[in-house]
């Protein structure tokens, strides 16, 4: 974990959970996995507080635990998971676009609480939605459950690993920490619940008749007494699935920019069909035949089969190489080349950063070196049609910022500089890592600046002053009115 990432994690933990959790979390990220007592000793906090902080972190899936031999339980923080907290608003917004307000609130509750049972989620969401609806209308539990089931079917929420049910009654002492397992098949299985009920409003509105509160109160108490039918089955938001969705969106918009709207719709259909069948790290999607794609096109896009075939051929022949043809059965089998698509998008991001930072001539040189893989300085001047002095200057600037690197090819065994070829080359992976690190540091800077602005802006002081003026004026007016 680089310094910038640790700083960003500490800022995020502090904003969301407070000082103590931040201290424990950052300590764990820095030092790796440690047992409970060592954490308490190293950070100088009391055992009680450490336990509470770890509870919060485990609930939100930020810290995992493991039982080692000799019965010691060690806790380990997942730094990458903490950084995902930056994306919570984006996850919520995506669900809103796909499943409207109900889905948005479900995912929001799951992200804010870490893990929840289905019945708890449904109840909370129904209550929140009922408050925003007009008087007299309430949100039915069934509707919320339906949306929940749909979210589970498309893998946006998944079950948390749970304690395995042991059939044989083991008389030995229970282990210090349970090992959680989850069956692959059960991860998206929604338990059969019959949640009947409607959302309830909070009793803060003055229009409630006196009779109603009494009727509501007994309902509340009976609800608490009933055992929750799905106790022990907790659900969490499936972040990998959201990332897959973002990746698909990026690919579709790239195709729309390069070609036209219809091609991007075709690519979107293909990606939607392979959402569940392809794992997120596979290089290619499953081959899809042209007939299947034709059947799955969204309604309202009435293009004929031949036109679809032409579009598919065009997509497969395009120099972008996002779509490839893998066979001829079923009217042509097509795959989407995910690795190549991501590499092209990363390269385009690098090029755009070079263009904004150094200028469009530098961007020309950068793309030239990318295409030719290894190129000498003299050739750079010839191909890019840029005067020699400027070309040299730009190459050195990019070299110093680590966007490019030099490859030496010696002519003689003694590597004399005058008799060595120096070739410029771009290593996309290392340039991308460097840029990612810079992004993390930039976000940390922006968060710090925002905190600084809200602290320094002294809004509280001026608000109090304005309030005083209002009070004076109001009392003067009251006085004057009374006199008259």
């Amino acid at each position, binding site marked *: 974990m680089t310094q910038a990432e640790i700083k960003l994690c500490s800022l995020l933990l502090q904003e969301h959970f407070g000082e103590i959790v931040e201290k424990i979390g950052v300590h764990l990220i820095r030092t790796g996995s440690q047992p409970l007592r060592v954490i308490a000793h190293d950070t100088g906090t009391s055992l009680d507080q450490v336990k509470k902080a770890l509870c919060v972190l485990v609930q939100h899936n930020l810290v995992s635990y493991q039982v080692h031999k000799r019965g010691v339980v060690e806790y380990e923080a997942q730094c990458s998971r903490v950084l995902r907290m930056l994306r919570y608003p984006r996850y919520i917004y995506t669900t809103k676009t796909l499943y409207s307000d109900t889905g948005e609130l479900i995912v929001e509750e799951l992200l804010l609480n870490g893990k929840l049972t289905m019945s708890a989620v449904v109840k909370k969401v129904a209550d929140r939605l009922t408050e925003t609806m007009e008087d007299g209308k309430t949100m039915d539990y069934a509707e919320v459950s339906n949306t929940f089931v749909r979210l589970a079917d498309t893998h946006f929420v998944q079950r948390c690993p749970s304690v395995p049910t042991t059939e044989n009654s083991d008389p030995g002492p229970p282990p210090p920490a349970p090992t959680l397992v989850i069956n692959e098949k059960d991860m998206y299985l929604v338990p059969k619940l019959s949640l009947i009920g409607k959302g309830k409003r909070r009793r803060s509105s003055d229009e409630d008749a006196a009779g109603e509160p009494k009727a509501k109160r007994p309902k509340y108490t009976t609800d608490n007494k009933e055992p929750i039918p799905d106790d022990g089955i907790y659900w969490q938001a499936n972040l990998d699935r959201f990332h897959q969705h973002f990746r698909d969106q990026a690919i579709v918009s*790239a195709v729309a*920019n*390069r070609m036209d709207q219809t091609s991007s719709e075709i690519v979107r259909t293909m990606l939607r069909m392979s959402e569940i069948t392809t794992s997120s790290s596979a290089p290619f999607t499953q081959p899809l035949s042209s007939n299947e794609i034709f059947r799955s096109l969204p309604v309202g896009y009435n293009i004929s089969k031949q036109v679809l075939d032409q579009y598919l051929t065009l997509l497969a022949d395009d120099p972008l190489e996002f779509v490839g043809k893998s066979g001829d059965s079923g009217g042509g089998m097509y795959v989407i080349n995910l690795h190549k698509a991501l590499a092209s998008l990363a390269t385009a991001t690098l090029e755009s*950063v070079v263009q904004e930072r150094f200028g469009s001539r530098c*961007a020309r040189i950068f793309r030239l070196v990318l295409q030719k893989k290894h190129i000498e300085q003299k050739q750079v001047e010839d191909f890019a049609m840029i005067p020699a002095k400027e070309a040299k200057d730009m190459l050195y600037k990019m070299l110093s910022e680590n966007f490019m690197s030099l490859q030496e090819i010696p002519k003689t065994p003694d590597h004399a500089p005058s008799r060595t070829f120096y070739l410029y080359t771009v290593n996309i992976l290392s340039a991308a890592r460097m840029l990612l690190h810079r992004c993390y540091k*930039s976000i940390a800077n922006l968060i710090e600046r925002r905190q600084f602005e809200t602290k320094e802006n002294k809004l509280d002081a001026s608000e109090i002053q304005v309030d005083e003026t209002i009070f004076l004026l109001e009392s003067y007016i009251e006085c004057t009115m009374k006199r008259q």
Partner: protein
Amino acid sequence: MKGSDNQEKLVYQIIEDAGNKGIWSRDIRYKSNLPLTEINKILKNLESKKLIKAVKSVAASKKKVYMLYNLQPDRSVTGGAWYSDQDFESEFVEVLNQQCFKFLQSKAETARESKQNPMIQRNSSFASSHEVWKYICELGISKVELSMEDIETILNTLIYDGKVEMTIIAAKEGTVGSVDGHMKLYRAVNPIIPPTGLVRAPCGLCPVFDDCHEGGEISPSNCIYMTEWLEF
């Protein structure tokens, strides 16, 4: 050429053999085995008799190559159409660059608006290098005669700008513009992503990024770039 002795004749022969690429004085010395002072005297003599001339090479501006008086220097010496008097003509290249791009862009626009089936649309948005060459010649913005290879180097710079893509198709020998049985086609394209998010924040473009940390002279709290950026 009477009045010149054998040595002069030898030097003249060597220079003639070099053709229109010219030959450097050191190479003349190697080939003729004459001492440097002799060579210099002979060269001055020949120049005054207007039999040879010296041309400055564009690769190394101090080097002078000698060739026969009435020969046109080769492109590798003068740099071809892009150099005039040893100066790289950047503006000329820029103007050509923009003209070619406009031509390809308008071709792609008309193809897109025709709204026929996609295959025809795509094929009509392509332009071969020959067509672009003809268009530029007709525009008449160039004083120097430009060949098709010159236009192709300009189109290559457009490819490196990310504005144009190229495909090579097989073409019959004899169709206009084909070279060795294949033709190069060019097409204007849009970039695949808009300017990325990092560069919209001041940190993405900051020149002192590496020196910035909390509590230092340069820090996020007193960053002048951020203050300007927040001033909207």
